[in-house]
């Protein structure tokens, strides 16, 4: 209630002309987007969204990027949102346009990314009558959006668009879809900007009203931590979403608790920090999983204890009490019972917790973990590799060295994704972007485009396998048309590698439908008007990366890697995370 009162006071931006005007619905959409601070949108026109596209040319501040497939529009908006923290916007027509967004919306939903998708719909009189390009997109997207709206008349549009942005951003972020019938886009309504609360006003009021966690919870957490001998912090995507990097570091340093970063938590805490341990779960190094198994207290911040992190739940952290900080109350006790459930924004909660905890010293515990790590690393270095093919670790280290860790890395899904998470050194905040929850192949290229357009001054590398690279590869044309330059590493092993690895381990090497051929990427690059480089020898990695960085425009670097390289270690599905398959 207090928030609402504050917003009412704030409504009406000084200096903004506040005349009530009569506008077509399509123009009201654009007005509301401009007022929300939108500058970039990704989309694809079609019959039911044509009035909007007609209005768009009157709003030069809205830069529309014509993607080559609507799925890519959603991923690009997703990448943009993850990199900038703003809401990503994508647009599609009704029917197939809208259903093509579905995978992208589901990806954003699983990874809590704020998106607003605007779809055209057939005219109101045709709805429910199987009209041309009619799909019940509200029904289709209901389980994969945070919320969705069907706009019933033009006078609702502005309010719905602003609401959509507020819903997308507030609490645990997520995608919101707004479905607007074609005749509503034509319909005229009176539009008066100051009648509506923008997400910026709302979020500001929300931040001012942000509640510190209850004192008794903080006291309980402090008490647990004071008695802990083997505590660990597990940091997830929530740290990045709430911009809680400093608070996490301050908390870790004051308590000297080692920090584990989940897949989406990579780059929330510097890999080079002495307290950093690494990735947990299915492909986490042994010492990280062992630390979890021996831990007596786990501080989980902004993570949801996903099954790829926990393995068999009963075998996960059997000795640990859990302090779980998450903004979403429905995450509490979902997988593991939290001894201290703290429903709060990570930034606020960590700052408050840092105040109440006493400084601690866990150097003996850290030393113990490091000793396990040393043994494993020695073992892995002793493994001889006889071929001279480029290997994933050298490729990732090469990219890290060439970019001094300042690039933003967007990975696809599969083996290379795990190698990237593990072997790149994450030192720059929010530099790791990937589809974690849904595991969407074909994410990297369009998402990298969104990242680059959101952060035009940064170097953006997309990394994919030869399977995922062939999904959404059409976006090379969009990059070319927009003059957007990314560097694109493709690790080509001629297999759908992660599935092949599972077949090797769990299906007696029955490589069913995993060998895959691809195009000649150098020629393909040429066909799209970008540059292609092929690397077949390990010693050429560094020079190829250098050449890619020095070449203007988008560059594809295809690395021919060992066909049956595996991601080690690996925890078999359904097994405890300490039960690992090692190289």
């Amino acid at each position, binding site marked *: 209630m207090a928030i609402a009162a504050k917003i009412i006071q704030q409504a009406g931006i000084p200096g903004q002309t506040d005349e009530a005007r009569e506008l077509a619905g399509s123009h009201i959409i654009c007005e509301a987007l401009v007022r929300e601070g939108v500058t970039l949108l990704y989309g694809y026109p079609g019959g039911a969204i044509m009035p909007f596209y007609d209005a768009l040319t009157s709003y030069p501040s809205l830069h529309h990027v014509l993607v080559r497939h609507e799925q890519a529009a959603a991923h690009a908006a997703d990448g943009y949102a993850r990199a900038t923290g703003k809401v990503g916007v994508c647009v599609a027509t009704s029917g197939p346009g809208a259903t093509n967004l579905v995978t992208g919306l589901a990806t954003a939903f699983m990874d809590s990314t704020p998106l607003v998708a605007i779809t055209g719909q057939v005219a109101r009189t045709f709805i429910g009558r199987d009209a041309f390009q009619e799909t019940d997109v509200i029904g289709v997207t209901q389980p994969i959006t945070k919320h969705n709206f069907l706009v019933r008349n033009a006078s609702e549009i502005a309010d719905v668009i602003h609401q959509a942005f507020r819903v997308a951003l507030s609490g645990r972020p997520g995608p919101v879809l707004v479905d607007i019938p074609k005749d509503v886009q034509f319909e005229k309504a009176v539009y008066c900007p100051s009648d509506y609360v923008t997400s910026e006003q709302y979020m500001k009021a929300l931040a001012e009203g942000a509640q510190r966690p209850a004192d008794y919870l903080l006291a309980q957490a402090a008490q*647990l931590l004071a008695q802990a001998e083997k505590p660990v912090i597990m940091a997830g995507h929530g740290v990045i979403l709430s911009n809680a990097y400093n608070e996490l570091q301050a908390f870790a340093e004051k308590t000297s608790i080692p920090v584990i970063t989940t897949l989406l938590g990579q780059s929330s805490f510097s890999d080079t920090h002495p307290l950093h341990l690494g990735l947990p779960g299915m492909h986490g190094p042994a010492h990280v999983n062992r630390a979890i198994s021996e831990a*007596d207290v786990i501080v989980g911040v902004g993570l949801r204890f996903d099954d790829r992190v926990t393995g068999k739940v009963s075998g996960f952290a059997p000795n640990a*009490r859990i302090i779980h900080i998450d903004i979403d109350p429905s995450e509490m*006790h979902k997988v593991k*019972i939290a001894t201290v459930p703290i429903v709060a924004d990570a930034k606020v909660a960590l700052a408050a917790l840092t105040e109440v905890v006493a400084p601690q010293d866990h150097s003996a515990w850290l030393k113990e973990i490091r000793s396990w790590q040393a043994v494993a690393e020695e073992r892995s270095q002793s493994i001889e590799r006889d071929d001279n093919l480029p290997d994933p670790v050298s490729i990732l280290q090469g990219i890290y060295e060439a970019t001094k860790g300042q690039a933003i890395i967007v990975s696809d899904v599969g083996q290379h994704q795990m190698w990237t998470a593990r072997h790149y050194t994450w030192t720059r905040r929010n530099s790791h972007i990937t589809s974690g929850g849904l595991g969407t192949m074909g994410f990297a290229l369009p998402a990298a485009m969104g990242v680059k357009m959101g952060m035009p001054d940064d170097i953006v590398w997309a990394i994919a396998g030869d399977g995922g690279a062939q999904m959404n590869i059409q976006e090379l044309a969009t990059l070319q048309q927009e003059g957007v330059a990314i560097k694109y590493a493709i690790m080509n092993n001629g297999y759908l590698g992660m599935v092949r690895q599972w077949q090797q381990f769990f299906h007696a090497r029955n490589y069913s439908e995993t060998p895959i051929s691809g195009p000649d990427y150098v020629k393909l690059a040429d066909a799209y008007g970008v540059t292609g480089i092929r690397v077949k020898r390990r010693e050429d990695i560094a020079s190829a990366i250098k050449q890619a960085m020095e070449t203007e425009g988008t560059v594809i670097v295809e690395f021919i890697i060992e066909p049956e390289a595996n991601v080690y270690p690996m925890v078999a599905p359904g097994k405890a995370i300490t039960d690992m398959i090692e190289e």
Partner: protein
Amino acid sequence: MTKITAPAERSGHSDVSRDVMQAYTLVVLVEDRLGAVDRVFSLFRRRRANMQTLVLGRCELPDVIRITVAVNDSEVGIDHLVEQLRKIIDVRKVAHFMAQQAITRELALIKVSRIEEHTRAIIELASLFGATVVDLTASTVTLEVSGSSEKIDKLVGQVQRYGIREIVRTGSVAMAYDAEDK
């Protein structure tokens, strides 16, 4: 391992195990908007919630639909379900209680076969349960009864011997007891 004299797990909650299923009544108030009720139902579907009855109707607030669901779940499960329901934008309020914390009522119509010599007995039985005869034909007598589900179960059990042609039950609606009455 360290000894920790720590707060109880899930402080403020009972220590009933995750495996113990109990009967709960959920009351969900949703905005009367397109797709709002859908969203609530699809959450039940997605969670494979063990629903016993489900009732949808109006309440004292305009533009609000009151959904009453009887569901069997664990305490942790029900807490999680409630939090997930609260995340649905169109959901205004969610309350949940166990049977003894609420007045629950259900309405049933029971069509019973009749032959002349049983008619009196059926009607007398019905009146014991506060049921009324709402229709009478040469071969059937239809009873209307309301009350707790258990009461209706009992009446059904009693008239079984005369031959039941058809039963319709509305499912339970519930209202929490006022705190001061307890």
